[in-house]
């Protein structure tokens, strides 16, 4: 599939005659990255599907006001991260459960998930990741799975590179401790 630069996509989007087409190109170009980022946070496919659609609706509404101070890709990641965290917050408040309970729920949904094809060790790794605090979990996923640079993560999470490095280091250590158990 052909990749388009931010400028190409934005120019087409700002032209009323190719607005819908440009948005379609944008969704096609970024849907997988954004979906997997969300899926690793909310775990369940149906939840991820709802969140990813909300993200792109927000993108559609906000793209006119996109200032180009950052790259489109980091802007999309930022919206996706915020939407995922909001989703988890709503889930917590609607079922009156604590952070630990949500982590347990997510861990259980991993067991029942038809769309999880990992072996036992992969399941254990995901369970270890779910024990991390939400923001540390996001930092770990972005660095470990998405292999993003700290500078990009800093743009997305609006946190200093130093803080992100420390957060990732702690996350890796906690996961290692979890894997050592049993």
């Amino acid at each position, binding site marked *: 599939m*052909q*990749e388009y630069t931010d400028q190409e996509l934005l120019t087409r989007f700002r032209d009323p005659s190719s607005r819908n087409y440009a*948005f379609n190109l944008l969704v096609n170009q970024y849907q997988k990255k954004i979906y997997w980022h969300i899926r690793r946070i909310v775990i369940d496919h149906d939840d991820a599907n709802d969140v990813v659609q909300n993200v*792109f609706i927000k993108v559609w509404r906000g793209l006119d006001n996109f200032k180009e101070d950052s790259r489109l890709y980091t802007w999309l990641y930022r919206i996706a991260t915020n939407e995922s965290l909001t989703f988890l917050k709503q889930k917590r408040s609607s079922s009156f459960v604590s952070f630990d309970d949500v982590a347990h729920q997510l861990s259980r949904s991993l067991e029942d998930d038809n*769309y999880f094809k990992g072996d036992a060790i992969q399941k254990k790794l995901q369970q270890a990741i779910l024990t991390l605090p939400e923001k540390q979990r996001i930092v770990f996923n972005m660095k470990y799975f998405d292999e993003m640079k700290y500078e990009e993560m800093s743009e997305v999470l609006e946190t200093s590179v130093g803080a992100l490095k420390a957060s990732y*280091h702690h996350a890796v250590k906690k996961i*290692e401790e979890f*894997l050592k158990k049993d």
Partner: protein
Amino acid sequence: MDDKNKINDELNDNLDEIAPRLSKLRKEEPFRVPADYFDDLASKILSKCDNADEIKEIAPLLSEIPKYNPFTVPGGYFDHLPLQVQEKCIETRRSSWAAKLAWLLRPSFFIPAAAAVIAVVIAMVLMKENSPLVSESEMTAMNVSYDSNSTDAITEDALLGMDDAAVLESLWSDPATDITGDDHYLSANEEDIIDYLLDNNTDISSIVTEL
């Protein structure tokens, strides 16, 4: 280097003979890479190496786990997602209009707004009914024209310049005018008056005193 160029030239010459159509095609790279791919390729590789080294050092168990995405999606999910997103965008646009209309029609806004509009309309109707048929300025203009055009009009200047004796004479001469009442006294029968006074036992001296 010269040998290499020589071989290339020979190959190109042969290509013209072996495949003339191919040799006429423009030689260009048909493949594309993501934007800025080569700009940060080196730093990405270095970052990966650093990350792998860090994990190996502080988390040997984690570093042994093969890194792959264990999650999956329903078949054809990403083929249909763009369409789903576009449908939802259209739906949201429609529902946002409906939401705006609903907001305007909500009882807490609509009832006071409607009451205010009705009150304003009623006030305007009442004001129109109670207002004079002619405006003050129109009335002033009418008075001025009456004063200046009417033959019966008596202006202040005319009254000031009129002789009192002439006025009285005019009134006496007008049979329709009855300002003194003397005629009635004169026309009344004196005998009838005397009879009336006697019948009512009126004291004549008191009448004289009164007069």
